[in-house]
């Protein structure tokens, strides 16, 4: 059953194997989707903000860690002084209740933590998944059995619970963002490894891999030259969906107080005390919540767009969904209904890849 489940999201084996033309096709299909383009622009902007965080805060003239006790009213329990939570020329988005730290600075530095941790965790996941998945598919029966069983067990571990527990036993001296990325990466690679294994098994059957083996290439060389390019499509597709998931996990762990710890700012951490302050400083709640929402939404939409661009079958399903009724039925009848191996767009260029 698991085989059937993981095989379905794996896109066409050879859609990316044709190198430059495959990449061009990918861009063309991605550009055809307006939502994905908007999402890509938002993601690019977020990455830019994260990279330029020191510059942006320098322009504002603030930093994320300095306390401003004069800007909070200690008599009223630490509510920011001034209207709207202390928004002004010096503090563009106001200050944090109680500590008076600059919110704009904490928000943009929080983008660094959020994106940095999520991307680093994704890289760890991809690395482990490729090593485990490819070794399982190419190794002998015992290697496959051991690796596949291990993967099954990893998949069964609840991510949040395991990372919470693991974070408890690591000494506090370890740099926290690195640790969170490592923990997420080390726990949540199982599903991707299953996809990689299934895809490698499919690729292994293809003629050009058989030809390479017959000409005496080493397994390592075949894995590197023939299999990795074919794995690119599912890897990109799935990691595009892993990044927003990892952002959510980091934010959740930091929200619970076990992820990224102060003074390092993190969006999840900013929300921890926000419910107490929502009347005096609503932006203390709305800014990190909005940032998380926009980031995860943009990455999810972009991830969907990437999948559609890489997988013609998903693209045809999409058309079924959005087309008008009569049209949709006719379209679906000719694509999803038939049992052809690759019923995507006709002018696909897939033939030349296998030739």
């Amino acid at each position, binding site marked *: *059953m698991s*085989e*059937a*489940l993981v095989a379905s999201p794996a896109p066409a084996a050879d859609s990316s194997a044709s190198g430059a033309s495959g990449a061009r096709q990918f861009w063309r299909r991605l550009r055809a989707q307006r939502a994905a383009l908007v999402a890509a622009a938002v993601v690019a902007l977020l990455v830019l903000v994260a990279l330029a965080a020191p510059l942006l805060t320098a322009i504002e003239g603030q930093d994320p860690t300095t306390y401003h006790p004069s800007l909070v009213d200690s008599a009223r329990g630490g509510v920011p002084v001034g209207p709207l939570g202390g928004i002004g020329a010096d503090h563009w988005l106001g200050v944090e209740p109680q500590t008076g730290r600059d919110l704009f600075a904490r928000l943009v530095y929080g983008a660094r933590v959020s994106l940095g941790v999520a991307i680093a965790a994704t890289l760890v996941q991809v690395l482990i998944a490729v090593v485990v998945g490819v070794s399982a598919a190419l190794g002998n029966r015992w290697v496959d059995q051991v690796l596949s*069983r291990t993967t*099954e*067990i990893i998949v*069964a*571990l*609840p*991510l*949040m*619970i*395991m990372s*919470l*527990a*693991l*974070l*408890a*036993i690591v*000494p506090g001296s370890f740099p926290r963002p690195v640790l969170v990325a490592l923990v997420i990466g080390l726990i949540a690679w199982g599903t991707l490894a299953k996809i990689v294994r299934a895809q490698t098994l499919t690729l292994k059957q293809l003629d050009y891999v058989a030809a390479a083996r017959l000409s005496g290439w080493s397994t390592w060389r075949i894995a590197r030259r023939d299999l990795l390019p074919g794995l690119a499509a599912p890897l990109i597709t799935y990691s595009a969906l892993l990044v*927003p998931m990892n952002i*959510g996990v980091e*934010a*959740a762990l930091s*929200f*619970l*107080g*076990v992820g990224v710890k102060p003074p390092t700012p993190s969006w*999840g951490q900013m*929300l921890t005390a*926000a*419910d107490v302050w*929502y*009347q005096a400083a609503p932006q203390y*709640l709305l800014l990190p*919540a909005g940032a*998380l*929402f926009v980031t*995860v*939404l943009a990455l*999810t*939409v972009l991830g969907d767009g990437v999948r559609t661009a890489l997988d013609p079958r998903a693209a045809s*399903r999409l058309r*079924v*969904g*959005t*087309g*008008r*009724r009569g049209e*949709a*039925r006719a379209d*679906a*009848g000719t*694509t*999803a*209904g038939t049992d052809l191996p690759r019923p995507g767009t006709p002018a696909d260029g897939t033939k030349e890849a296998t030739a």
Partner: protein
Amino acid sequence: MSGFGGFVLRRTLGTVITLFAISVIVYVVFYATPGNVAQITCGPRCSPAQVHQVAEQLRLGDPLYVRYGHFLQGLLTGQDYSTGTSVQHCPAPCLGLSYQTDQQVMRLILTKLPVSLSLVFGAMAVWLVLGVGTGVLSAWRRGRLSERVLTGLTLAGQATPVFVIGLILMIVVCGQLELLPFPQYVNLSDDPEQWAWNLVLPWLSLALVEAAAFARLTRSSMLETLAEDHIRTFRAYGVGERSVIGRHAVRGALAPIIALNANTFGSAVGGAVLTETLFGLPGIGQELVHAVNVVDLPVVVGMVLVIGFFVVIANAVADVLYAVADRRVVLA
């Protein structure tokens, strides 16, 4: 039918092996780490004599497999714990003793379990109804404005972290509109009505995120089924649209929904930790966060094992249900 029985047997065996493997992994990760395990287990305020006693209790002098064997034996047959002045017996599924609170971990978990089960299973009902309902509706209304609105809402739901939804719900419903009081857990046996009212917001916050995935899956598998030949045949015979959608297309989506429900159970358990912490529900999740913060190792290990147990069992049950819904699985 023997094929089906064999499948269930194989799956049960696999579940037992997985549970065993998880217990080994968890034990090794938490009790074979570098550093003074006895000191960490006992807690920061322990005297050297107490630490020595803990080291003896955990058999730290023995090789790892003997220590694990001792741990497993305690789990299966129970164990006696000496607390210095008296001996405490910890009955059969013994997960050890919290040295910080002198409490048996299993007993602690059992007092917290009803809260977490109320939360997760209630939320499951909400996400199934809401998610599958939305999916069916948007497959039915495909191409129309209502479908686009539903798709947008689904995407927004999926992109909002559990604790953000919970925070906003709590602030708007309890704080601004004052429709409900801030949730406070009431036992089901004490007052079923108050129990439900106090859980409405936690259920919703936990379920909204998960419902999104169900809506998307239901919609896409229904559209796939609707494109198949036998549906065209039904339509050609004049079967009404309501019956085509409601009976035949939904059936095609059943097996994937069951599979997703098992996966979701695992992630909902993580979401429950957040929901419980946010709403102050005294469940396993809140206790786990507390134990992590004060580094109460026996409690952390016990909770991870119990939660892992539930998730693995849920997956096994889902696999069997999946096979009932789609008999082709048994042959594979």
